[in-house]
């Protein structure tokens, strides 16, 4: 009776595939929008507020 | 197979087994003048005179018939007499150098403890010499070695368990421990691992070392080997187990930690401040022997700004003509050095040291003049070499010599970062290694406060003794 492919191996395979896909995508488009963009969009109002209270002239950071 | 009552059968079987063994002697005699008996022994392994006088003569000349086992026993003036009743036991005893006596009408045979052979006299082990302390070393005879330990620890708590290993070599092995000091689980584990060994011949402790280690692929040894009785004894009282093999002066101590491999007996024979200082020196040079060339390569290739300016100018000048990169130079020189070292180890003592020194100097100098390597590189290799000689045991020096090269390579690729990553990688391996269940890096990780005082310092003696 052949042993069923274990869950761990499936997980490993899926993750590796995801990694390879991501790597390929990044090679073709290094500026691929990523998690940071997502977070930025989610919390846009907060970002604006923080930039506003920064002590730098013009309200810009770094 | 049990022995038969009839002498003829036993003798026939023995002669068949020992066919073409011209050194196995069959000596016929008649006890009391008429009971047939046969004495079997290996000449060269027995005390011939004693055999003649204490066994053969009294048996032959003694009074008459009806010998029982007890009777025959009492006729001879030998202190150690045992009986065996199977053929295999008999063969083992003969092989051990004990003359055996087969008597017609008796289902057992008598074994006399009259073995004797040529052996080396007790000398100081060459690889483990000290300035102060005993100069005895184990020899090849198991019996003598055990006796040496008994002389150091004269207590009945010193337990000795003997058995044989090796389906063909039937080598006597001894497992020794101190009752009350050694954890029973440890002793059990050692014995069970030894019992699991399936091997035809055991000629040295190294043969069984690989079998009973936790991780035989690691470059780091997980058992300590020593030729010194005082070292073995000191580990015995601390609760370790000693394994001895007949035929070799090297004994094994289990378990062993990384730090135990970095200790010498002299640490304990010197004064405590001296002991601590030398210990620190040893740790420092141990690090250098691993990282020396790598640090040089890293700094010269990536982090030149760390070198003081005047030194840097000198080094730059000396490296001007060299066609190789620092990494290649280092590889070349280190390989040459290792080659010289191995070659020098086989040479007879007198020429060995001279050749190594001259060879190193001459080759080094010639290489510098030829513009193949730079003088600072030779210095680094020399210092690293000296540092590696500070490793108290050969077995711990080897992994360091080996690991130097990958770290050098990493240093050449990523500078100091590469060195750090290499060290971390080695640490990952060391932190997971165990020796008979004991973490290899104790007492540093996991931290055990009272073990630490023997690792970081060599605590004064009144502080060291946990047992009364």
């Amino acid at each position, binding site marked *: 009776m052949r042993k069923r492919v274990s869950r761990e191996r499936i997980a490993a395979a899926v*993750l590796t595939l995801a990694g390879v896909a*991501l790597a390929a995508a990044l090679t073709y488009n290094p500026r691929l929008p990523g998690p940071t963009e997502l977070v930025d969009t989610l919390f846009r109002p907060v970002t604006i507020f923080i930039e506003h209270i920064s002590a730098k002239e013009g309200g810009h950071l770094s | 197979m049990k022995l038969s009552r009839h002498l003829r059968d036993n003798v026939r079987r023995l002669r068949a087994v020992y066919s073409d063994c011209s050194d196995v002697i069959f000596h016929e005699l008649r006890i009391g003048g008429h009971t047939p008996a046969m004495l079997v022994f290996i000449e060269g392994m027995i005390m011939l005179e004693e055999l003649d006088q204490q066994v053969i003569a009294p048996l032959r000349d003694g009074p008459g018939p009806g010998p029982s086992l007890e009777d025959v026993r009492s006729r001879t003036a030998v202190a150690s007499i045992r009986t065996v009743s199977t053929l295999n036991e008999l063969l083992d005893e003969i092989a051990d150098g004990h003359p055996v006596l087969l008597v017609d009408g008796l289902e057992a045979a008598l074994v006399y403890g009259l073995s004797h052979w040529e052996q080396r006299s007790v000398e100081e082990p060459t690889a483990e010499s000290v300035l102060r302390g005993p100069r005895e070393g184990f020899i090849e005879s198991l019996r003598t070695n055990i006796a040496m330990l008994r002389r150091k620890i004269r207590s009945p708590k010193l337990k000795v368990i003997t058995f044989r290993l090796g389906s063909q070599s039937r080598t006597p092995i001894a497992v020794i421990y101190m009752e009350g000091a050694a954890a029973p689980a440890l002793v059990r584990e050692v014995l069970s691992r030894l019992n699991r060994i399936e091997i035809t011949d055991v000629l040295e402790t190294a043969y069984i070392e690989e079998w009973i280690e936790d991780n035989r692929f690691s470059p780091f040894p997980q058992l300590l080997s020593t030729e010194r009785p005082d070292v073995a004894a000191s580990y015995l009282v601390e609760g370790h187990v000693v394994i001895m093999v007949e035929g070799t002066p090297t004994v094994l101590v289990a378990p062993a930690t990384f730090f135990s491999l970095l200790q010498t007996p002299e640490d304990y024979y010197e004064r405590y401040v001296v002991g601590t200082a030398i210990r620190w020196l040893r740790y420092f040079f141990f690090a250098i022997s691993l990282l020396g060339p790598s640090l040089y390569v890293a700094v010269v290739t990536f982090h030149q700004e760390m070198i003081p300016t005047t030194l840097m100018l000198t080094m730059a000048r000396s490296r001007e003509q060299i066609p190789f990169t620092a990494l290649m130079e280092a590889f070349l020189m280190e390989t040459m050095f290792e080659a010289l070292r191995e070659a020098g180890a086989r040479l007879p003592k007198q020429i060995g040291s001279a050749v190594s020194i001259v060879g190193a100097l001459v080759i080094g100098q010639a290489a510098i003049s030829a513009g193949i390597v730079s003088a600072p590189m030779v210095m680094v290799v020399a210092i690293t070499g000296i540092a590696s000689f500070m490793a108290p045991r050969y077995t711990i020096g080897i992994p360091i010599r080996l690991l130097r090269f990958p770290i050098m390579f990493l240093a050449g690729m990523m500078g100091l*970062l590469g060195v750090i990553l290499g060290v971390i990688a080695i640490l990952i391996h060391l932190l997971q290694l165990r020796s008979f269940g004991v973490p290899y890096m104790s007492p540093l990780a*996991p931290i055990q406060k009272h073990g630490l005082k023997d690792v970081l310092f060599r605590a004064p003696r009144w502080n060291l003794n946990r047992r009364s």
Partner: protein
Amino acid sequence: MIEKGKISSAQLGKMIYLAITPTAILTAPGISFNFARQDLWLSPLWAICGVIAVPLALGLNRLYPDCSPVQASRKIAGRIPGWVFAGANWLFYLYMSGIILREYGEFVVGAFLSETPLLIVLGSLVLVCAFAVRGGVEIVGRFAGLFLPAFLTLFLLIVLLIIPDLQITNMMPILPEGILPSLKGSLVLQIWFSELSIAWFLLPYVSDRENAKKSLWITFGGIILTLLLSNWVTLLLLGDLTGGYSFPFLILARYIDLAEFFTHLEALFMAIWVLGAFVKICVFFYVTVTGAAEWMGLRDYRPIVFPMALLLTLFGIWIAANFQEMTHAIATSLIPLALTMFILVPAILYAIGRLRGQGRQ
């Protein structure tokens, strides 16, 4: 639970200290300065999130002392919501690990190995971390115990050696606008302080749980002290220039000049700092991997360590196009994200848990 290893409460404290401090002393002073100016040395004192995070982690663990957070969240909030939370959680930790990794990488490449591709630098560290994480929580704990003394020693050494060059006038005038600037400066520090809630993920493995509380508070105090010291010293040396450097503390190391012999020792600083960063990434990566493994219902996390290591490396590159973008993100959008995932959501879970009457034996 997926992890069978055990750590001591002392190891817990050390792990968490090294899981927070190294990057904090590296980039935080520069960012804080833009909000607090010369009051930035006070900012670490407003460690509000720390004061919330520690009891939160302890409380959450007390609800289900021997369950991992993934299991606990399922029990508290129900199977589906718990599952959703666990998924968001490990993805969040993956993102955080990616940021930390990138910070480390930018530091090494920017200041030292300018020719080396970022991918190599990131990949090599992730590879080593992967091996350590595969070894389990015990190994990471042992590393923390091993590296903490070295890290602290070097930190203090650098601080000591730079004392002759410090100018106390740089911190004047003190509090010209009241405490508001230093509070604003502490805003970005809340990210690091809220990272203390990572303790929730490690508490199930602590063998002497009774001492964990003390250990965590000591660690908390240690972090505040370290940040105070590093902010203060950086300010006293660099004054107005503090905000202009990406890695202000590095400048301190560069400044050291002992008898004109020991100069330019910053490579040494990098070496020891890498030890701290290594532990930090190991801890975060460990939480990511175990969280992911339990979320997927696996029995053993070891098979997915290397694939996740690949993902982590890629994340490190993906999260920002360059260093400035990343710093900007840290200073702005990361703050609310961290507060949400480190404080808010666990707090909600805890509230639900207590309201449902759980954890009352």
